């Protein structure tokens, strides 16, 4: 084996090592460009709605809006799967309110309206000034207070 072969192999090891690093980084780009942000409201519905359903939908709220507190102005679309409110990062609405619990409140659709469960929070949840337990009906415009944050359902 000559000097040339040795040097070529030596160079090859370094070049391949870096080629490996770059191919890994190339795959990583998927993390940066792997999501699609669409600015249209809501996911497309799979089935056609009937007229009465649509009328009812028109009246039912579509958003949860923060009207007071640090996150004032934030709105989260309501989901048929329901959503969690609290300080834990896995909640759909992550509060930065020191009086909120990790998993504080669950909001989910019922037959005719949206309902809320307090998930055993430390400082409680008030709807229109009354402390709530579970299965509380939320009418449009109801004021949901968690610590220093006030939430409201809006159309």
């Amino acid at each position: 084996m000559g000097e040339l072969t040795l040097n070529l192999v030596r160079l090859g090891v370094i070049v391949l090592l870096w080629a490996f690093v770059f191919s890994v980084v190339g795959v990583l780009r998927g993390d940066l460009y792997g999501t699609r942000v669409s600015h249209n409201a809501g996911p497309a519905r799979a089935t056609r709605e009937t007229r009465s359903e649509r009328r009812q939908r028109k009246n039912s709220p579509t958003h949860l809006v923060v009207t007071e507190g640090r996150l004032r102005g934030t709105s989260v679309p309501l989901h048929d799967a329901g959503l969690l409110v609290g300080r834990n990062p896995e909640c759909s609405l992550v509060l930065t309110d020191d009086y909120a619990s990790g998993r504080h409140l669950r909001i989910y659709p019922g037959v005719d309206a949206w309902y809320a469960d307090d998930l055993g929070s430390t400082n409680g949840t008030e709807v229109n000034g009354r402390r709530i337990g579970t299965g509380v009906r939320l009418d449009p415009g109801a004021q949901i207070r968690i610590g220093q944050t006030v939430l409201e359902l809006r159309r």
Partner: protein
Amino acid sequence: MTLAPTARPSTVTSLKVRSGRLVELVLVVFAVAIVALAYVNVSIATEDRLPTDVWWHVGLFGVLPLALHVVLRWRARYADPLLLPIATLLNGLGLVMIHRIDVSQGLGPTDGVAARQLLWTGLAVAMAAVALVVVRDHRVLRRYTYTAMAIGFVLLLLPMLPVVGQEINGSRLWIRIGPFSLQPGELAKIALTVFFAGYLVTTRDALSLVGRRFLGLQLPRARDLGPILVAWGLSVLILVSQRDLGSSLLFFGLFVAVLYVATERTSWIVIGLSLFVAGAVLAWQLFSHVQQRVTLWLDPFAPGQSDQVAKGLMGLGHGGIFGTGLGEGYPYITYFPASDYVIASFGEELGMIGLFAMLLLYALLVERGLRTAIGAREGFGKLLAAGMAFTVALQVFVIVGGITRVIPLTGLTTPFLSAGGSSLLANWVIVALLLRISDHARRPVSERRLDPTTDRAHPTEVTP
């Protein structure tokens, strides 16, 4: 998280989910090819011929990650595709360097340390496969939070026991059972990560909510300092009784890191660092072996002390930017060229360019771990993945920092590279757990399994 800042909501959806298994297969083959070329390089440089049985040896190594790849296709289809190739490449390069040190001592590929390391690699990959098959869902591990604590502490304290414990090179880190000697601290770090994650996911509210603000830091209440003080006490105990600054720093750092991830309070890092500095200064004043390490760090060329750091620096200097080439330097002059000082050996033979590529591989491995933590949808998985990624990062920092004189040298193993079975075993199990968590995090909604640990307090998994 669908936090829309305006009234017009944006929905963030993933593009078509790719399992990434094909990418993984290609990269694993690529990694094995690099290892094969490096192996050939050593042989040409030292013996001026191709290694005998090169296909046999490379095949024996290559079949291990490929088998794990098959297990992943079977049991964790959506796991992160980059963890396995990176671990494979690092492990393979470690094997090549160990073999190269063997050659310098007149040992062949079958009777040297490398053969034993290959055996350990097989065992470690098998353990990773077992972990992937047995732990179908990482959330199950949360049930064993306190069992993991007990196991972790027992493993940590085992080397201090009189019969099984062994003192090698001034540190009590090993136990000897029959012909096997093990470093139980390596396995303890997995158990303790499980414990820290399980413990902090339930207590983080109390540790992050209350407290006064002081100089822009949210300070915790005095009575919430309990856990961090216990962790600190234990790490000081390790420092004193086992004379090992490295693992002491590793365990305390791991706890503080998981605590920070759990609570988002910078004050815990400040408190943790000041506690550690206080402990380290105290140890420096009280113990002569710590003083030796510090003088060795500040002045490695001073006469009348160990020349280990100096020899490592000479090696790195001899390698320069491009390195001497595998098999053409003198890494075997340093003490422990295949275990503690394997990074210096690589620095000499692959040069700064090669060493930086390897450090990047570590960075990418850690990044994948932290990315897994971001993707995980429940607290326990997040903390577990972040903790595991952090142990790898901290371990690399401590040992590379020690060799390059950023911090005082302490004998930690370099993940995947160092000769030594326990470290290899522990790191492959860590990779297996990260793969398991990432499989769970990347799995599309339609294929998700329900929570095995359903409890009434957390009724639904809400997917925004």
